């Protein structure tokens, strides 16, 4: 039997007992922490309802809010750029670097920059670009990609990191002491913060009312990246804009509780302008890159628009039984887990990411924990439909890339035959008679279905016949 790439990647984790234990423990840890900061179901639901209302309002007014954000940022001295896709966003970053004659970048954690492949792009063009979030740094040092959107190095054990540091950090001696390991990373990265020309960050929320970029973190590398270098570039998906400053407490509370089980992160960083006259520090220039990369198309699709409500907390993957078993890398997409199953096919197309849409048991856990009530199982099911056909009224430009490509004549024919049989009593009983009497002819193995399940076997006589015997 031939395996697909996805199956091969999933098998890597599934066959590695240590790794599956790693993931299991990490997910249990995050889930327990989350429950510990959720006071009561009612209270959390009220908070979630407010959060959802804010995010809905933001999406309904998205173009107006983006224009308002741009206007406010410009007035505050933040330069605003618009990027339709990854290539444009990367080019804008390089353009700023050229203007400033910059050579080195230090990065705070940003999924948007992962999405546009910024590290790869900059390093290929001869720039130095280093991740400064401890998890991201570990992953970059190992030449890997993040396996979780909040805890990027969740797939690596302490021992693996100890070995990695001993091998790759000059002058560092092998130790499994976590404080010493963090200390070693701190020492390397502090030098880089001091020397870097440009700092790069993502944005958790962009406040239209005040032109404010809000970033949350525990380590302080986000503050370092946005404060020490003379230039700061923030990359922000266009859906991250929110209307008002007073919306922040609700959204921050939902985000940090759902993500890491904290009532608040160590640092909440609100950036509203570059260094002001008289200020002693802070970057002289702040650039905001508003990244579309497929989001405006999602926004036009009424059936899939709720995808954009996401605040990137990662609770859906922490609670997903599939993610917990196969890990983040199996998905083969920047965003893993349930939200990845919904986002990746829409951003990069069903041709590339169509298979992960099937990697779901529709158990509903993700939808239940989502702090802004995204119906993730519903969206996953809908994308399964889109894989098989594009809605009639949808223009090609608005369709999910690759939609309809997954249509198989065999599958479509089978459904048609079933419809026919189920709607004709005579045909149905004929088939039933055949299946019960000729059950010995059914093959012993039916593909991948029976590789992990007991082969179903039709009964010798149908229920209908048995009941007739009893004169019911």
């Amino acid at each position, binding site marked *: 039997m031939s395996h697909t790439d996805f199956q091969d990647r999933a098998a890597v984790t599934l066959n590695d007992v240590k790794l599956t234990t790693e993931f299991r423990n990490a997910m249990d*840890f995050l889930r327990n922490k989350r429950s510990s900061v959720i006071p009561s179901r009612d209270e959390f639901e009220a908070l979630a*309802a*407010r959060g*959802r209302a*804010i995010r*809905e309002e933001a999406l*309904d007014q*998205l173009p107006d809010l*983006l*224009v308002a954000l741009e206007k406010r940022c410009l*007035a*505050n001295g933040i330069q605003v*750029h*618009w990027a339709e896709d990854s290539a444009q966003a990367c080019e804008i970053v390089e353009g700023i670097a050229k203007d400033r004659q910059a050579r080195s970048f230090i990065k705070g954690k940003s999924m948007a920059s992962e999405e546009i492949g910024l590290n790869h792009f900059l390093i290929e063009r001869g720039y130095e670009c280093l991740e400064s979030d*401890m*998890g991201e740094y570990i992953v970059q040092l190992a030449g890997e990609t993040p396996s979780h959107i909040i*805890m990027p*190095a969740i797939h690596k054990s302490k021992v693996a*990191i100890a070995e990695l540091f001993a091998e790759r950090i000059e002058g560092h001696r092998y130790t499994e002491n*976590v*404080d010493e390991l*963090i200390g070693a990373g*701190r020492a390397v990265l502090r030098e880089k913060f*001091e020397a870097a020309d440009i700092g790069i960050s993502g944005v958790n929320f962009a406040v239209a009312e*005040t*032109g*404010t970029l809000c970033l949350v973190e*525990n*380590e*302080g*590398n986000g*503050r*370092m990246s946005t*404060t020490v270098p003379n230039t700061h570039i923030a990359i922000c998906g*266009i859906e991250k804009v929110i209307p008002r*400053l*007073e919306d922040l*407490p*609700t959204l921050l509370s939902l985000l940090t509780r759902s993500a890491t089980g904290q009532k*608040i992160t*160590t*640092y*909440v960083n*609100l950036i*509203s302008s*570059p260094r002001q006259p008289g*200020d*002693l*520090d*802070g970057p002289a220039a702040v650039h905001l890159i*508003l990244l*579309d990369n497929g989001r*405006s*198309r999602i*926004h*036009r699709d*009424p059936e899939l*628009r709720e995808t954009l*409500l996401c605040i990137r907390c990662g609770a859906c993957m922490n609670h997903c039984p599939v993610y917990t078993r196969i890990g983040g890398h199996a998905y083969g997409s920047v965003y893993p887990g349930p939200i990845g199953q919904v986002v990746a096919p829409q951003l990069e197309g069903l041709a590339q990411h169509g298979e992960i849409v099937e990697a779901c048991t529709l158990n509903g856990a993700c939808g239940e924990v989502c702090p802004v*009530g995204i119906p993730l199982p519903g969206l996953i099911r809908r994308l399964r439909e889109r894989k098989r056909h594009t809605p009639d009224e949808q223009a090609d430009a608005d369709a999910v890339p690759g939609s309809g490509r997954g249509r198989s004549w065999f599958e479509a024919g089978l459904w048609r035959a079933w419809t026919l049989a189920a709607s004709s009593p005579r045909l149905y009983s004929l088939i039933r008679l055949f299946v019960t009497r000729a059950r010995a002819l059914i093959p012993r193995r039916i593909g991948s279905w029976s590789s992990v399940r007991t082969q179903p076997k039709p009964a010798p006589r149908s229920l209908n016949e048995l009941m007739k015997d009893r004169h019911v």
Partner: protein
Amino acid sequence: MSDSEQQSARERILDRLTTAQPETAPADNLPMTPSASESDSSARPRSAKQQRQLVSQLADALLASHAEVLHVREDDWPHTLATLAQAEQLRTWLCHPACEAGRMFSTYIGDRQPGALKLRHYSGEYPLPADQAGTRQWPDKAALFHNIDAGLSHATAGIADTGTLLLFSSPTQPRLLSLVPPVHAVTLRYSAIQSNMAECMATNAVFRQRPLPANIIFVSGPSKTADIQQTLAYGAHGPKRLIVMLIDDLAQFSSTSS
């Protein structure tokens, strides 16, 4: 990208968002105003007793986040801090001379000259160590990263619920002072503590300024990470220690209401 390409990227994105707008499916009936109930409480002035409850709530939350909390008086905290600094070998301190905390600590150090303590001022010129003659202008990154043991600043507001301190950037409140040195000491008045973030943002005039300060930081403990096998470690990139000095300024309250 050229300016015109930028312009058209902007137009195309906005055009796609504007035309053929569906409404997001509403989820039941939802209250549209965020935090009305939370900010109601801010309208009522608190008694000294209630304010003290907030102080202990804030202190507990900070302690749980691995911060150190000292309850001090307005007139004696510089002495408390200098004693702690000497005991723990935190020799070189950095503050801004015109910030509230910096001014008081500077005066104390100037008067008492406690042995082995050095106080640098984050403004004007920075004198280089003895082996390198001369001076440099602040902000001197090398000095900040390598020659300072602790930074001292003042928090304008606090949030009891989450154990959070607010730092507003300004010419006298530089941003790196609370970030780069391995220890951050900070003063906060009892009276400046609000119960939650919504109330704090509603009552503090800074949030109504336009533009807002270049940078507002909510600090809720020392820098930390759990990125290695979910094991908590402090001092990931920012300060390893956060020393919070809570200044009791409720004397005028307590005589009347407790």
